[in-house]
């Protein structure tokens, strides 16, 4: 290729009066953007390789660097955006499917931002979480619909297995392989310290992390990578992954370059082989097959673990969830179309699935209409970005939220969206040892604990403002929400009133 059709997306701006040529940028860039010219004593840059991960910016001791969007533009065209044209150049050059990472970045509506939360004034008092108890504990799992008495007239307190969470947030599935050993260790240790759960994703569980089993959700996906009896028994719950918000309708992709050493051993597949999970589970072509897998897993673990069924939010999600609720699943996890991923075909990531807010509202209402909301717990993910998103999700009807993008951001991710290259400069989405070591799990787990602690405080503040002192009284409490800038139809689906009503 002699012609470069695409001008680099970013510019590396180096302030020559501040640069001391310490070469930290050069050493830290796995993309090899920076180099040192000994003759002139100056740092040089090749911005065509820059992905704007901001590693160099963060480590530059004199703040001599910044990365800016290049202002070299194609001629303005409201129909043919720069991005659309550049994608055509890429495909015309490669003949391949475009790959992307992390969640859908397009300006589609974020309903969380159009929902506002209530607070008490006059008629009932707000509660101050600094002075009064404020409870965020949640139990996930199926609840009995009929109370039974024992022969002596006491309550029969038998419950199917439950997950106990100190707050309604869990770390969602990211496989060992798609993210690094140290990222997994950070998540596992943080979950354990916080009284929460992290999720293995479909890559199996590294033997070093069996000790965190009480706070681990083990996933069974269509590729069945790393699944064996001890693995199933190691976790606190088992999740069947039917789909993922970032790429509904297809399975996980992990390029062979990431299947090295322990990753290959943990997945139980040969080194260097691409781990391409099938689009469906080939033993589940319908809802009755799902029931069989749910019960096979329960049999294998002696009915001691709740089973989660995770699906992507798609058009018919309410009916699908209703089916799952009747399939023996204890928990349904729904992943919205903004959910992140280590690699997905761009067209699928950006065009398939529906927003989690609408999916959640529809599912919660449908399960209530059918009188089976108590049979299952609902966990939602797919871009839960803050404590207020959590509060809104709970008020719409979720029992808990799954977060992953927010968690990796806490670990240092700058959302450069190039996980698929395996050259993550922050040591998260990579298997290259010199990059993996950049994430010290002592720091990583501490930052995750900090993030969740901060969110928990914020959740308590918001609850207190509403006069609610226990998270279960917020669940499905849609009167606490009002919409702004929403159509009648959107309000109807969300089951909330417009602000001012």
């Amino acid at each position: 290729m002699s012609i470069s059709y695409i001008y680099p997306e970013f510019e590396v701006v180096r302030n020559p009066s501040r640069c001391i040529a310490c070469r930290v940028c050069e050493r830290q860039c796995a993309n090899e953007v920076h180099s040192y010219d000994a003759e002139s004593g100056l740092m040089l840059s090749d911005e065509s390789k820059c992905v704007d991960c901001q590693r160099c910016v963060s480590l530059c001791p004199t703040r001599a660097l910044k990365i800016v969007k290049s202002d070299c533009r194609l001629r303005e065209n409201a129909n043919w955006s720069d991005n659309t044209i550049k994608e055509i150049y890429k495909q015309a050059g490669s003949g391949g499917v475009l790959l992307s990472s992390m969640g859908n970045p397009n300006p589609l509506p974020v309903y969380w931002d159009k929902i506002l939360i209530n607070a008490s004034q006059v008629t009932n008092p707000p509660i101050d979480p600094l002075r009064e108890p404020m409870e965020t504990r949640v139990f996930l799992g199926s609840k009995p619909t009929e109370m039974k008495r024992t022969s002596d007239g006491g309550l029969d307190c038998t419950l199917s297995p439950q997950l106990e969470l100190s707050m309604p947030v869990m770390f969602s599935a990211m496989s060992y392989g798609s993210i690094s050993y140290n990222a997994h260790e950070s998540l596992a240790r943080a979950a354990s310290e916080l009284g929460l759960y992290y999720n293995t994703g479909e890559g199996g569980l590294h033997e070093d992390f069996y000790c965190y089993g009480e706070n681990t959700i083990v996933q069974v996906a269509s590729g069945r990578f790393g699944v064996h009896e001890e693995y199933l028994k190691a976790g606190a719950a088992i999740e069947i992954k039917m789909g993922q918000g970032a790429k509904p309708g297809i399975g996980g992709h992990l390029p062979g370059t990431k299947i090295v050493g322990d990753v290959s051993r943990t997945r139980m597949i040969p080194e260097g082989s691409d781990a391409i999970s099938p689009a469906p589970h080939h033993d589940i072509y319908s809802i009755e097959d799902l029931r069989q897998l749910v019960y096979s897993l329960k049999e294998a673990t002696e009915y001691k673990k709740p089973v989660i069924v995770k699906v992507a939010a798609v058009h018919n999600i309410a009916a699908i969830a209703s089916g799952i609720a009747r399939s023996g699943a204890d928990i349904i996890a729904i992943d919205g179309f903004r959910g992140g991923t280590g690699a997905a075909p761009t067209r699928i990531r950006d065009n398939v699935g529906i927003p989690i807010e609408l999916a959640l509202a529809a599912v919660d209402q449908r399960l209530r209409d059918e009188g089976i909301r108590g049979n299952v717990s609902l966990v939602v993910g797919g871009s839960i970005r803050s404590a207020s998103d959590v509060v809104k999700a709970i008020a719409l009807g979720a029992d808990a939220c799954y977060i992953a993008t927010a968690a990796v951001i806490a670990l240092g991710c700058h959302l450069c969206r190039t996980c698929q290259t395996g050259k993550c400069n922050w040591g998260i989405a990579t298997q290259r040892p010199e990059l993996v070591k950049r994430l010290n799990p002592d720091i990583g787990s501490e930052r995750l604990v900090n993030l969740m602690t901060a969110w928990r405080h914020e959740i308590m503040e918001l609850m207190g403002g509403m006069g609610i002192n226990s998270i279960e009284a917020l669940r499905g409490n849609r009167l606490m929400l009002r919409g702004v800038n929403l159509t009648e139809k959107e309000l109807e689906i969300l089951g909330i009133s417009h602000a001012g009503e």
Partner: protein
Amino acid sequence: MKRVYVNEEWCLGCHLCEYNCAFANSGLSDMVKALKGKIIRPNVRIEEDGGITYAVSCRHCDDPICVSSCISGALSKNDGTVCIDHDKCVGCLTCILVCPYGCVSQNEQGAVQKCELCLENISGYPACVQGCPNRAIVYEER
């Protein structure tokens, strides 16, 4: 007694510790002014070989050989820290010869310099530790 320890498992070889050390001991308040265009002479240095990197600085030994070999009494151990009195140093460089870690070096004036844990300089806390992005250098009780 708190000391500077190195966790080589987490050392990225970024060399930031060297620059932070040089700046902390420069006596200046701006890093650019202190280091731009200069050859730095830090008291901590990154050793590298193959994929392994780690920082080396004065161990503040229990029985410091540099102190016992100092001919002018410029080196002494106070509260567990091996310190240097620049007024007494005659620049004989014996300490450099005897230090098994290579942690004493010559400064621009020809006399010697070494890590004094930044306790007396602008940083007030080991600058290599404070600036390490991955907790590969820590200052702690062990």
